[in-house]
């Protein structure tokens, strides 16, 4: 008993290490998606979890806000402008020495004016002669900053016009593009496993070989084929059925391969018994193979769905980039802006688009197990 307790602890620790190593990059992304976009490129995501010391530059108000008091010209305000929870420790007035003064000490500018800053960022700037500078003076602060998160990135992505529409469009692409190959390939895989016909080995070899066909090289031949067909019937070459068929084509090899491996592994006595009883292949498929293959269907469904959902290239090439057809990955790329990547949209977008695949995984995981249990009872 003791021994198994010990080995269970070891298993727990090993698994925990795996989980931690695997989760850290994603966790970093999650934290980053709640951070202010300018912080993303200047400090590590883990720093935002704790109170940290930061160095920042702020600018005081300009001359317009000055008033006169006891022969002194005064500009008053708060350098943060908004409540931040930051606590200033020291400050400086030139970039050469950014923590020359402690809070509530008086710093003297070249022109003789004096400035004092409190812990919360309130400042008083006094001068004996009127202020003339249009822009305010720079103040360099060293402050402790409490953890701070924002929902702005999510607002920007989710409230953006067209993201919801793109979500629906993607479902319209992804569901048929997953179900159709599943249906076609299950029959195909069954035939390759249990039917006898001429050229079966060659066909199987072709399927396996086509697993490696790089997607990118098929795009031009296929799109020109689509164009020829669309010109013949005078319809648009870019449409939902077109993209379904493209995904079916690109997913055919792997789906067939996986399903065949599963169907082939089912006990052949069962199938032979059914055939002796006079069942035809369609009956066998419907009544025996289908119920038993549910777990395999679930895993193939997940994989194909993930692939389609995260696809960008096929959606770009086989659909028009108009609001009624644009898919979520393409829409997110559009939000990134012309010249590149706004990290905050990428991080947030990655999580928004992850929700559906993860939901499917969690939903099907239960189904997965139920299917297996049912299968073993019947078997």
């Amino acid at each position, binding site marked *: 008993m003791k*021994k198994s307790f010990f080995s269970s602890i070891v*298993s*727990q620790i*090993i*698994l925990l290490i*795996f*989980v931690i190593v*695997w*989760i850290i*990059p*994603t966790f*970093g992304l999650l934290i980053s998606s709640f951070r202010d976009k300018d912080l993303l*490129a200047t*400090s*590590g*995501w883990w720093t935002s979890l704790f109170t940290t010391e930061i160095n920042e530059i702020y600018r005081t108000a300009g001359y317009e806000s000055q008033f006169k008091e006891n022969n002194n010209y005064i500009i008053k305000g708060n350098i943060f402008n908004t409540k931040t929870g930051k606590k200033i420790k020291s400050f400086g007035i030139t970039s050469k020495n950014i923590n020359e003064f402690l809070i509530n000490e008086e710093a003297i500018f070249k022109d003789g004016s004096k400035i004092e800053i409190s812990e919360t960022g309130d400042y008083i700037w006094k001068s004996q002669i009127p202020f003339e500078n249009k822009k305010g003076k720079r103040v360099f602060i060293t402050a402790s900053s409490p953890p701070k998160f924002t929902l702005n990135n999510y607002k920007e992505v989710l409230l953006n016009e067209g993201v919801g529409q793109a979500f629906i469009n993607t479902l*319209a692409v992804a*569901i048929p593009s997953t179900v*159709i190959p599943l249906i*076609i*390939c299950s029959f195909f895989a069954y035939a*390759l496993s249990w*039917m006898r*016909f001429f050229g079966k080995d060659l*066909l*199987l*070899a072709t*399927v*396996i070989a*086509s697993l*490696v*066909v*790089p997607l*990118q*090289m098929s795009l*031009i*031949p296929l799109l020109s*084929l689509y164009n020829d067909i669309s010109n013949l019937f005078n319809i648009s070459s870019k449409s*939902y059925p077109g993209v379904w068929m493209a995904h*079916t*084509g*690109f997913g055919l090899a792997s789906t*067939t*391969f*996986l399903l065949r491996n599963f169907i082939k592994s089912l006990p052949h006595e069962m199938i032979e018994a059914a*055939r002796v009883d*006079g069942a*035809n292949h369609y009956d066998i498929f419907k009544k025996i193979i289908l119920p038993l293959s549910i777990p*395999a269907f679930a*895993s193939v469904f997940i994989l194909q769905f993930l692939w389609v959902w*995260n696809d960008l290239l096929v959606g770009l090439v086989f659909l028009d980039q108009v609001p009624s057809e644009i898919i979520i*990955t393409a829409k997110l790329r559009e939000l990134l802006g012309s010249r590149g990547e706004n990290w905050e949209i*990428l991080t947030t977008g*990655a999580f928004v688009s*992850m929700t559906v*695949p993860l939901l499917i*995984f969690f939903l099907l*995981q239960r189904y*997965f*197990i139920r299917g297996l249990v049912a299968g073993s009872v019947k078997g």
Partner: protein
Amino acid sequence: MTIFSLFVYIFIGVLVCVAYFHLSNFLLDFFTEKTSKKSINDSSIRVIIFIAPGFIVLLIFILYPVFETVRLSFYDKYGRDFVGISNYIWAIQNPEFKRAILNNLGWLLIVPTLSTFFGLVIANLADKLWWGTIAKSLIFMPMAISFVGAGVIWKFVYDYRGPGDQQIGFLNAIIVFLGYEPQAWLTIPLWNNLFLMAVMIWIQTGLAMVIFSAALRGVPKDMLEAARIDGANELKIFTSIIIPYLQQTILVIWTIITILVLKIFDIILALTNGMWQTDVLANLMYDWMFRGGGDSGRGSVFAIIIMIAVIPIMILNIYRHKEEQKI
């Protein structure tokens, strides 16, 4: 596209597909009812019904582009003039090509092996623990992230800032914390390949784990219990019962990941774009096919080399298929 038309679309799309199989088989049954039962089973019409849709899709979406690519590999960059095998000669003499082949070999050795191994270990550990489902979900998560997202994640892991500056890359932050010099991970030749592979392993382990986890439930419980009663420890059970039982599954997963690795391209495109000697065949293909207007001849050569590389895997699988037939 409204939600209503979404359902209509999905319904029609799926219905057409189901209707094809159901109606065709129904008609076949209807017209052959009168003949003897035996002939129905091996009716070649039913074979055609079963394989026709898959075969046609295979023909149009895979075989046609492959033949087109083979043709283009013998033509100039515009696909207009026949140039014989000069594109192939060019490729063989190209130093990038040699490097890409070596890099691809590295990927093929390391990624499928480690992903399969980790996936098996995790699936085996997780199935025994009460929080195993949570652990599996977390490890599966990278599978759900697009390559674009994964690129950003790992950019932030490998990021490099000069010594003395605040590191924003997690790996360098740890290194600096431990008192070492920060490294520009992705620029160190040879090692950087390993850092790129880590991304692929991170993603594909989830795939291996999910499939193993399903397969593990098929391991006969009484066999495990018998071994436990005999006093075998978990490691022994793992190596002498579970691994042999899962041999088939291991081979399948290894094949799938190997094939994914042969096509690997997005991760390298996002993180190094093949620079610092990290290029692989698929990147060269992409570069020549599309960059700056494209050279379909040279791009096609790389595509064909990738396809040829799979032949050994194919032979292995067909051999296995033949072995099964014998039983």
